[in-house]
């Protein structure tokens, strides 16, 4: 090219060709991104959450905390056992419940309930929670995650469907009550419970 300001015919075609490819790539990027982000967009507006039943109220003795399992409402054909989920159900009394996720609020390991000491303990980094789910000690910054529940026709149902993680909106919208207030509420309820009697019975059993 003698004159640098002039674009040759071939050069122009090449540029148009590149532009054309750019346009097609941009157009294709939309469906590709939609596909890639489908697991995110599908969950918008609590799209993954549903109410699932944990069983009859009578299956949960008053004053006790029991492990219950449910099938995650959102299922894919290849999920296998992974959709079976566990949760801790505490029946405070009557229709008053607390349903905790088994996932530790620290890093999600499964916490175990120890009725004798009234503590949930995490096997990973040693987080511990009181019976009402509030933080007792260890690295967690908050209490256990709680599922919203309701009692309908004698059945305990919870709103579930997402893995509870420290950052998930469902985790922060509930189960985040101030721990002091929550614990004071429960003192009166706890005093009704027969925990010390239970322990005495256990000690007697161990002695014999």
């Amino acid at each position, binding site marked *: 090219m003698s004159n640098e300001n002039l674009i040759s015919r071939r050069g122009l075609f090449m540029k148009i060709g590149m532009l054309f490819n750019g346009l097609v790539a941009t157009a294709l990027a939309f469906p590709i991104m939609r596909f890639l982000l489908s697991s995110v967009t599908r969950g918008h507006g609590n799209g993954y959450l549903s109410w699932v039943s944990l069983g009859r109220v009578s299956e949960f003795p008053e004053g006790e905390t029991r492990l219950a399992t449910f099938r995650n409402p*959102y299922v894919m054909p*290849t999920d296998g*056992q992974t959709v079976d989920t566990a949760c801790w159900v505490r029946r405070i009394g009557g229709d008053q419940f607390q349903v905790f996720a088994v996932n530790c609020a620290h890093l999600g390991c499964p916490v175990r309930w120890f009725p004798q*000491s009234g503590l949930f303990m995490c*096997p990973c980094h040693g987080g511990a929670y*009181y019976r009402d789910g509030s933080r007792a000690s260890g690295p967690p910054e908050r209490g256990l995650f709680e599922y919203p529940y309701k009692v309908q026709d004698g059945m305990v149902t919870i709103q579930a469907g997402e893995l509870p993680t420290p950052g998930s909106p469902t985790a922060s919208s509930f189960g985040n009550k101030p721990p002091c207030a929550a614990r004071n509420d429960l003192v009166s309820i706890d005093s009704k419970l027969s925990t010390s009697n239970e*322990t005495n019975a256990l000690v007697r059993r161990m002695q014999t």
Partner: protein
Amino acid sequence: MSVIGQIGQWFDRRLQLAAPIREAAEHPVPRNTASWFYVFGSAALTVFLLQLVTGILLALIYVPSANEAWSSLQALNHDVTLGWFIRAMHGWGSNFMVAIVLIHMVQVFLFGAYKFPRELTWIIGVFLLLMTLGMAFSGQVLRFDQDAYWGLGIGASIASRVPIAGPMIVKLMLGGPIIAGATLSRFFALHVFAIPGMLIGLVCLHVLMVLKLGINEWPMPGRLVKRATYENEYHQLTRKDGAPFVPYAVWKDLFFAAFILLAVAACALYFGPFGPTGRPDPTVIQTAPKPDYFFLWLYGLLSYLPPSMETPALLIGPVVVIAFLVLLPFLSGEGEKSWRRRPIAVLTVLLIAIILGTLTHLAGFTPWSPHMNAWSGDPVPQRFLHGATALQRKGALVFQAKQCRNCHSLGELGGQRGPALDSVAVRLTQDQLIRQVIQGGGNMPAYGKNLSPAETTALVAFLETLHPAGQAPAREAARDIVLRDSGTRP
């Protein structure tokens, strides 16, 4: 000309690869680089090739479905001829690869090889390290067992802490709202297609740059790197004191590569494959998940960081570390190469090695985790009950029944989360013991609501007996005076 020679010529006329390959093989390298210190790069490449081959072999049997992955691993372990061996080679290969890549990186750092003009080789190396770690984590997920399941939960919990985007990242990572089939599928795609594809590309680039720029010469104290003169000096060095890479230096690479392959095979034979542990059934919560070897240090770090520092450290820490590694050749792209004159570099490496080593060692026995079965599994040693009163014995029972033992050891048995209580009575007075038991504090839960007054009395009576034979228990000096003055005690 022989038939083979003719066939070779036929191909080369079309491929035209013989000349560049010969040139690459015989390019002169400084004589002193034919050293055993220079074999780690080729060893990493060798193990990477081993991982490619064993990975493809495993994919012949493995099924990336949440429903079948675990069973297909069992089939590999038990039904398919030598399936266990290939699994073990792949698993041990990954351990070796992480280790060799780290050693290679330390060597390159201490020999100043990241300086001009090899900055980009180093930066690509940093990304190769990140991808190697990505392969290690995603590989652990493909071993779809309990550890993999809860390990993903830990990954999701960490990712969810990213401000604003956290929940979206979690769903993107899991491929849905929970850890399930889609999660395994996408980690399979990452582990088998995406990351290896990028790894192959970057490894080729990395090796090509070593060939083009020449291997880093053995650093001599006082021989400084200057942008203006370095390339000239290097060429003079290779011309004056150079030798062809093949065979002058390559034989050490070949020996070490074979030795490493043999070591991987020996470990695979002797120790066997990793897992799988229990089925990935989230309703089985009697599990204490643990990461694979190369992430144990992180497991340790996460239990020692104070809660308030954890999220910033998790989110900012990696960014700072990666940024520092990438920027390193720009921060000190010139100057001294020899470790003999770079004390801070040597100390940094030692410090990091000691920190990682200590955390890994601690994660081997997890002193921060409660022993979930200690209360029912580890009896109170007899010597602590010898001559004890009925009240003290009852206290020992309360001690066990209330799971105190899960965090506190007696006679070196029990959890190590809290302090050992073998001599607690020397440290705390009766009043302090009562207060500690009831109110907790110092990382101990409060037991006030779970102990009756009688139980507390018994427990503290037992704890007061826990002191060495010749050492008196702690007591409050003022207490005696108050009791004497009030006439209750002479």
